[in-house]
């Protein structure tokens, strides 16, 4: 009897222990499952804006540029006027280069958002597209071009190109030459051996015959200085002055197929920092009739907006006289493009000098005597401010 009771008690204890164990393991499993369920729940996906294409997307950076961009585009001969045309990348990539990854987006809804990257109207019956970013001049004039900023900065090593292009007249050219004089027409005077002018020409406003050097009228009736002609030099904005040497079919490295050889992708969300000069403003640019966005940008980064490259005496001076640090110029850092005040005549006495008193000395003296005086020989907005240390040092103040 006693033995049976003991056995029963043992069995009961074992049963209770079993029930407790099973229930506890079930609850632990449920907890694990809940926890697992929580962990495996899909994270809310970041909403991708397929109307905005960017080269910075990791998937877009994975492959070479040539995997999407065809060089040359089929339309290169039509993309520019006949004599200006040259093999170039002047059109969007084909659909095929997007479809591998974006098939789903291409067929989502009646008007897929992704189509608006290139197409003006999202409709199977319309193939109209926004202008492609190249040729840059035409794109910059378009509505889309005006609203967009490039994701790329351009790398251009000035020193290498200076060495390639620099050519001084050989000794033979300095000698007297005999030429047949009869019926000879007057030959154009050969240009100075100035390699800069290969890429940088004097900018002529549309409708203007030539960049005739005219002095700035600093005391115009309205009290607003007018800008002289021949103010600015152009900078190449496209491939025209590159591909005649760097074309993929036999040219020099970096080849036209190696886009990254010249185009540096900027970090996403940080477009090229614009160097803002202190002198010009957009109103002045508009009033002076500057509409070309590349030229306006150049004007706005100036500290002395009145300076004209084509002014009678300036155009006689070698570029390197003022742009002394050409090898150090970096197209990625526009501050390196600044010309120091001392290049305006310290040593040559063009604009700096005490005896006879040159214009910088004169204006600094007037400014120091009367804080309301505005320096207008070289400046517009900046002329209202105090002369900087560099100007005081240059004039010995």
């Amino acid at each position: 009897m006693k033995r049976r009771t003991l056995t029963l008690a043992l069995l009961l204890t074992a049963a209770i222990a079993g029930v407790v164990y099973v229930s506890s393991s079930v609850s632990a499993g449920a907890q694990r499952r809940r926890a697992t369920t929580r962990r495996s729940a899909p994270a809310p996906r970041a909403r991708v804006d397929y109307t905005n294409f960017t080269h910075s997307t990791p998937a877009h950076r994975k492959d070479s540029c040539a995997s999407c961009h065809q060089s040359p585009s089929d339309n290169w001969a039509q993309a520019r006027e006949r004599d200006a045309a040259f093999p170039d990348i002047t059109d969007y990539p084909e659909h095929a280069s997007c479809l591998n990854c974006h098939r789903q987006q291409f067929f989502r809804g009646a008007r897929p958002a992704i189509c608006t990257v290139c197409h003006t109207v999202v409709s199977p019956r319309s193939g109209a597209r926004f202008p492609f970013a190249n040729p840059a001049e035409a794109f910059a004039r378009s509505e889309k071009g005006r609203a967009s900023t490039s994701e790329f900065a351009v790398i251009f090593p000035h020193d290498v190109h200076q060495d390639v292009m620099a050519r001084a007249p050989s000794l033979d050219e300095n000698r007297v030459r005999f030429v047949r004089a009869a019926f000879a027409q007057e030959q154009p005077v050969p240009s100075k051996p100035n390699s800069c002018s290969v890429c940088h020409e004097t900018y002529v406003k549309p409708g203007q015959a030539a960049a005739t050097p005219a002095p700035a009228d600093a005391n115009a009736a309205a009290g607003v200085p007018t800008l002289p002609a021949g103010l600015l030099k152009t900078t190449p904005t496209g491939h025209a002055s590159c591909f005649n040497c760097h074309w993929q079919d036999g040219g020099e490295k970096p080849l036209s197929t190696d886009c990254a050889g010249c185009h540096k992708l900027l970090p996403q969300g940080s477009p090229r920092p614009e160097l803002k000069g202190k002198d010009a403003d957009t109103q002045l640019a508009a009033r002076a009739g500057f509409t070309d966005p590349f030229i306006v940008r150049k004007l706005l980064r100036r500290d002395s907006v009145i300076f004209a490259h084509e002014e009678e005496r300036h155009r006689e001076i070698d570029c390197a006289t003022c742009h002394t640090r050409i090898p150090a110029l970096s197209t990625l850092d526009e501050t390196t493009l600044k010309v120091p005040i001392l290049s305006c005549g310290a040593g040559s006495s063009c604009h700096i000098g005490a005896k006879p008193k040159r214009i910088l000395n004169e204006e600094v003296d007037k400014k120091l005597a009367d804080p309301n005086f505005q320096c207008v020989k070289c400046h517009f907005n900046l002329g209202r401010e105090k002369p900087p240390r560099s100007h005081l040092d240059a004039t010995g103040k």
Partner: protein
Amino acid sequence: MRTGRRTHLLWAALFSGLCLITAAAARAQSPPPAASCQPTPTPIAAKPAEPDADAGGIRVFLYDADKKPLARKRFYLLRRSAFSAGIDWASMPRRADFLQGASPQLREWLARHDCDSLYCPEFEAEFPEAVKTVPEFKRAYDDGLRKYRNEKLALKWLAVNFPLRNVRSEYFQRKRAWLERAGQQAGKVVSFMTDEKGRAIFTGFKAGDYYLSNLFPFGEGGPVWDCKVTTLPPNPRQMWAVTYLLSPPAKQTAPSP
């Protein structure tokens, strides 16, 4: 007797060969001739610049032996003397070595120009004439015309389609690589190119002792400058604090009969 004579002849030939080899080796390894460097008599600022401070600019005027300014010539500011930096002068590329396969017309055409490559923009004005007289240019033009169907483009892109790569830019590339190596060995700090007046202003470096050099002679057998310069403090009224006049050794005039 005959054996003795042959032995003498062999010895003589061996000796001459050795002499020739020694002469050739000596010629190949000798650095280019040095040229003169004269600082202005009185530098504008008199006391030397403090180390680690910004240095005043160095203005250079470069003249040829006839005292004419030498424009568009590159000079380097170096930490070490070009002649004691261990530069391998014998490996300097020579233009003549990059003319293999060139026709006599092309050689003659190139001899009239002094560019290191075919990419000198001033050549472009002469391309229309060159395609008529130089076979290589004609071939490049025909190739371009076939590809682009545009005469102006075929002319403008003449260099791209030029058949001889060694003539086109190989010399320039090798020279550049040589200068890169030599510059590294001599501790290149900055480089500048002279303007049309033969003038260059070196700026943007720290105070100290440097050497000015062109590293690569401007013409075959031409001089290499190796001028020791000591910087001066910046002059607030000028971009330079000291001026150096550089000129090659004077031309040797032929003795009068």
